[in-house]
């Protein structure tokens, strides 16, 4: 039997959760992480990261719009999927996720972006002609009140929305970890630490993602990178990365010390089939190396150009590492038999509905959405500062 070693139960030979299910927690993680970065400025008053505030919100929205797509594409009958929202069952984690998703999309992200951009939207609705002007007019919801008092109310309400958004972001991504962590039949997944590890790894990927986007887009716009901002983001990335790594190691040490009946099988898998993706990519290249690089920037006074390069390399490595972590959780959890007597192999398809090309397309799609959003609602300070002041 190709790709099978030892004994597998019949339903374990073929993997049902493909690379798209790897992509799904990766994308939702970017959403949650980007939002947490935005909340740093709004709720925790970290003024240094302000240049990335709006970009982080738009990034979160672009990725959130794509987040359910890998799941829908995975389904054999995607048009049946709304049924679980029309007739939800309390024991269905997926149905509950749908509500959390809608809440997070509309009540948190869209609302916060709308409040934050309302002043510009009103200006643009008055100065833009044609179809785009109509789009802006619809976005005003018919209200052009941008008096000082109205904007003050927006500011206060926006603060509350961000405050509510933090636990919502935790819920959104914690749920993804919960889905895996609550599967008691699978010892690779079943761990109460799973939601916590997912949340912190989400923060790492989201912060790294927004940092890279900010640096890349600023370079593309031929503007100067605000080093105070990037230094602060890198510092937060470093601290959260340490917590994330510690939690993952805690999970590992706990598994080794507990050494239950699954341990030998899982240990063998980590040393063979998962060695490259887990030990080499996830831990060495995707965690320890960026941690060491970020540590250097914290303790050694490096020139600006060196810091920029280190941040860019660390950000890319962190994203690769977090993707590898999702891969090892999703694919790793399906490679071994629950009889602990055998192992199977995942062979990724290329051009199928759940193949590599689709995964690449779904990774690029949020960037396309982000491009449209940036064109529609520019997150750069100069565009808003130069806008004329309009009274009520």
């Amino acid at each position: 039997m190709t790709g099978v070693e030892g004994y597998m139960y019949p339903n374990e030979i073929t993997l049902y959760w493909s690379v798209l299910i790897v992509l799904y927690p990766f994308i939702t993680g970017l959403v949650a992480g980007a939002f947490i970065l935005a909340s740093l400025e709004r709720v925790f008053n970290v003024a240094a990261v302000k240049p990335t505030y709006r970009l982080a919100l738009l990034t979160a929205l672009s990725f959130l719009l794509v987040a359910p797509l890998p799941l829908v594409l995975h389904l054999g009958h995607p048009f049946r999927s709304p049924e679980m929202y029309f007739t939800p069952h309390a024991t269905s984690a997926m149905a509950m996720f749908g509500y959390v998703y809608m809440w997070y999309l509309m009540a948190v992200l869209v609302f916060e972006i709308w409040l934050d951009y309302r002043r510009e939207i009103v200006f643009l609705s008055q100065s833009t002609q044609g179809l785009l002007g109509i789009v802006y007019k619809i976005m005003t919801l018919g209200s052009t009140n941008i008096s000082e008092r109205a904007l003050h109310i927006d500011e206060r309400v926006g603060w509350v929305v961000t405050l509510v958004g933090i636990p919502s972001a935790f819920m959104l991504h914690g749920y993804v970890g919960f889905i895996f962590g609550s599967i008691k039949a699978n010892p690779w997944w079943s761990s109460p630490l799973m939601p916590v590890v997912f949340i912190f790894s989400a923060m790492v990927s989201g912060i790294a993602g927004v940092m890279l986007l900010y640096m890349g887009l600023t370079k593309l716009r031929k503007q100067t990178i605000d080093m105070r901002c990037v230094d602060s983001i890198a510092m937060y990335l470093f601290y959260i990365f340490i917590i994330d790594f510690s939690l993952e190691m805690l999970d590992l040490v706990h598994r080794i010390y507990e050494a239950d009946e699954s341990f030998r099988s899982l240990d063998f898998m980590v040393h063979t089939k998962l060695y490259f993706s887990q030990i080499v990519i996830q831990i060495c290249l995707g965690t320890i190396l960026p941690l060491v690089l970020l540590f250097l920037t914290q303790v050694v006074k490096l020139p600006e150009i060196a810091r920029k390069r280190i941040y860019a390399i660390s950000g890319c490595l962190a994203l690769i590492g977090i993707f590898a972590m999702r891969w090892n959780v999703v694919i790793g959890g399906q490679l071994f038999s629950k009889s602990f007597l055998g192992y199977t192999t995942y062979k990724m398809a290329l051009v199928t509905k759940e193949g590599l090309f689709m995964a690449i397309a779904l990774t690029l799609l949020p960037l396309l959405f982000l491009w449209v959003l940036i064109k529609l609602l520019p997150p750069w300070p100069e565009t808003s500062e130069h806008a004329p002041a309009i009274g009520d």
Partner: protein
Amino acid sequence: MSVFKDAGHLFRFAGLFVLAFILFLVIRHFVVPKSFGQYGHYRAASIGEIAAHQVKYAGHETCETCHAEVFDVKKDGKHAHVNCEACHGALAKHADDPGAMTPTKPDTAVICARCHTASAAKPKGFPQVVPADHSTGLPCETCHQPHNPGMDAAAPKAPVKAAGGAK
């Protein structure tokens, strides 16, 4: 009441939510079947619909009343406990009126492979082969009698090699 005036746009956004919620309820009203939830978390009317389905399988006892000669071959072989319709398909219509429907003969190159293709999940003692290596596409009945699948004495001997299974 300038607070309400200056917060008017927030009520407009809240109005969007109310509209979306009403839309959700309207769609739900039309798409959720009326009998859903009557007895449990399922559509109650489905019980009657399923009960009204016509029986499609006749059962091996019915087959044996007419095809006693096959039963005689089958009863001493390894396929004695394999139901006729497991290979021949659902044949209640044929049993009701043999003239109304004539069952097609299964292609043994395909049907046998369903159970006998090597798989790591099958016990070692279960006969299993890699069909492409074992028969190179020939129908299994060239060598095996499907109703009693020991080797046919008239056919050329071919080694049956087990190619998988647990120890």
